[in-house]
């Protein structure tokens, strides 16, 4: 898929950024093939995520990588040596994006790379992808949200097994565990993610953001409180032009044209 770039962003050194038809694409690009995440990459990722989140032209964010690995982890050799781990943390910034984030995964998805992937809403992986949180092998625990997000994604039993042993799993097992939403062998993972991204970009933009809020905030609530949140968000949507357009398009049997208002 060739990328026509609607507008150029300033040149970052660790991330490559483009937007096509409302799909914002971020490719992380480390200094080596393992795509290790360093302080600069964390800072640049934060900036790009924020600018995409604030830009109405962007309706969905695809997080991918240059080269054959998504990311094998952090460039930080010893997390105990640094006081300010926060400048290396990136996962919560990604997880807090209002827009849907899709992780396009291949090769090594380890340690902080895995924690970054876990912060996304949707994960697709190609064949020969390896997942793992191997911090235990260096006497540490995950420090970019992994203990919390992996447990919520696949349940405490499988999460503890993976984190206590530092075991790696492939994409087939990741699909079974519910760690990834889909795998691909025929097409490149990035293409699958971009295709799914363009489906998401065709939906009502406000509705998609509210859906994400209802699902993510609701998962920490009792079902009663979650349903109350859903009702309030659904009622708020009554006033949008997008909803009116959606219903009009349904009645006229055509595809809706959403503007995000």
């Amino acid at each position, binding site marked *: 898929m060739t990328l026509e770039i609607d507008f150029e962003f300033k040149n970052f050194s660790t991330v490559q950024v483009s937007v096509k038809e409302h799909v914002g694409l971020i490719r992380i690009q480390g200094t080596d093939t393992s795509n290790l995440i360093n302080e600069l990459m964390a800072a640049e990722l934060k900036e790009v995520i924020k600018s995409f989140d604030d830009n109405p032209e962007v309706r969905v964010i695809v997080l991918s990588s240059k080269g054959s690995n998504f990311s094998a982890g952090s460039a930080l050799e010893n997390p105990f040596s640094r006081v300010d781990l926060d400048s290396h943390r990136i996962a919560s910034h990604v997880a807090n994006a209002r827009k849907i984030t899709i992780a396009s995964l291949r090769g090594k998805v380890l340690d902080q790379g895995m924690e970054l992937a876990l912060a996304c809403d949707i994960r697709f992986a190609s064949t020969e992808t390896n997942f793992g949180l191997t911090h235990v092998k260096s006497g540490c625990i995950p420090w970019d949200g992994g203990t919390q997000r992996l447990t919520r994604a696949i349940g405490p039993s499988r999460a503890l097994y993976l984190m206590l042993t530092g075991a790696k799993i492939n994409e087939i097992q990741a699909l079974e565990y519910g760690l990834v939403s889909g795998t691909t062998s025929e097409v490149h993972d990035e293409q699958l993610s971009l295709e799914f991204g363009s489906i998401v970009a065709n939906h009502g933009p406000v509705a998609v953001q509210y*859906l994400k809020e209802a699902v993510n905030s609701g998962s920490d609530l009792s079902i009663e409180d979650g349903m109350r949140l859903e009702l309030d968000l659904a009622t708020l*949507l009554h006033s949008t032009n997008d909803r009116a357009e959606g219903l009009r398009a349904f009645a006229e049997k055509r595809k809706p044209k959403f503007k995000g208002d």
Partner: protein
Amino acid sequence: MPLRRKGSRSLKVTDKSVIYSKQGSIATIQLNRPESINAITQSMRDLIYDALMAYSHDEEAKACIIYGAGERGFCSGADLIEFGKTRSQTESRAIRKRRDLWGLLSQIEKPLIAAVHGYVIGAGLEITSLCDIRVASEDAVFGMPEVAHGFIPGAGGTQSFPRAIGKTHAMKQFLSDRSDRMTAQRAFELGLIHKMVSIDVLLKTAFNLAEEIVVTDLEVLTAMKTAVLDGWYMPMTLGLNLEKRLIGNIKPNN
């Protein structure tokens, strides 16, 4: 505890778009607007509400099967034509609060069994996700198309569906388009569906499950649902206390 009242409430309605009936201790709710694949209208919402209240109040009834009439499917969702005619935000919220069908469905303490076939879309899938036991025929297809229409699921789907199959798979389904609906086989693999059978025996399978359930005392069934569903949101120690308290309330059966 379920609301208890002597005798069952009879429904005196001429609208046949929802049919409530009972055989022994097994109640059934049939969505009956097959010409529209049982798309849920406002009056159907009220009728389902009444039917669930009747089930809840009926001391004899211990299991309820929800299913759809016609060949094309269980339910194609909310009736979007009617949807377009809704009033102001405040009014529709007030109506919802007055007769909160989806809240009732999620809080009813007696077992609910969904027996679904064909199209199980939008509100159809949301009703299914709020049931405790879910049986589907092999031809069932599941979809949540709301965001493609510019709104979000409003019958509890954003809460019940991720709880049924996990957030990873639920998010993908919410954001997919109609070309990517979930098959019965996939729904079975993900745990949305507990039994997948041929369409000829769908209702029979649901009745067999209901018959297995109704041999148990009602107070045991409601205690079980309460322990699992309420306990799920509690810290472990409080959940274990809840279980102890519920066990203590059950009278030994001789």
